[in-house]
């Protein structure tokens, strides 16, 4: 095992050593939004189960999910979804070997950050 002989050898610098940059901040947001979407997924499944159970239980759950606190969670989840979707496509483009130049990566990063806000507004307007 690699861990056995590790001893007191120096470790590589951790995250807090580095000055935050656009690409590193967007990268950690990809993780945070991905993990955070667990909450949105739970709400979607709860809502579907409520609909399958019957009209009374559906009215209760639908009312809770569309209450002000529910809407706040939905707003956060929908933004997280839009961000994770757009930045995920950015990652897939990288996986194909394109867009690694710092200037390009910064441009696509700003486009993803701005686009996630625009897409969230469009989704709420469409709903």
């Amino acid at each position, binding site marked *: 095992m690699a861990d056995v002989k590790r001893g007191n050898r120096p470790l590589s610098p951790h995250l807090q050593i580095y000055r935050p940059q656009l690409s590193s901040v967007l990268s950690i947001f990809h993780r945070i939004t991905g993990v955070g979407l667990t909450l949105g997924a739970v709400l979607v499944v709860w809502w579907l189960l409520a609909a399958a159970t019957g009209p009374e239980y559906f009215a209760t759950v639908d009312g809770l999910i569309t209450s002000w606190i529910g809407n706040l969670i939905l707003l956060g989840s929908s933004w997280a979804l839009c961000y994770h979707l757009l930045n995920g*496509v950015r990652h897939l483009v990288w996986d194909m070997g394109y867009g690694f130049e710092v200037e390009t990566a910064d441009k696509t990063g700003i486009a993803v950050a701005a686009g996630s806000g625009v897409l969230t507004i469009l989704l709420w307007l469409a709903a």
Partner: protein
Amino acid sequence: MSFKTSRARVSGLGASGEGTHHWWTQRITSVALVPLTILFVIPFARALGGPHGDVMALYANPFHALVAVLFLAVGFHHLAHGVQVVIEDYVHGKGLRTALLLGNTMFCFAFGFAGIFAVLKIAFAG
């Protein structure tokens, strides 16, 4: 003397014992989720806060039922794989890490199947 090729001898080794399988699965599911997310979320958002009958009518439609089932199956698969990597990266205690990995897998299976069951019940039984 081994008659295996060099490639065959190292295949499946590495820290996870499965090469690039996990990474590649995450790419396949993410590509599939681009259209599935768009097709699922828009009708879902429109039905949210509406009458019960509209939701029943939505998933009685075979196209929307199938989209929902695929979105839930691929989405929870993608979620399970993604959260697994986060746990592996940040949780170092062996006991806690194993417990969280187990919990993550069970949670994603349970909620994924619960959602699929709900959609199928609406689609088949109304």
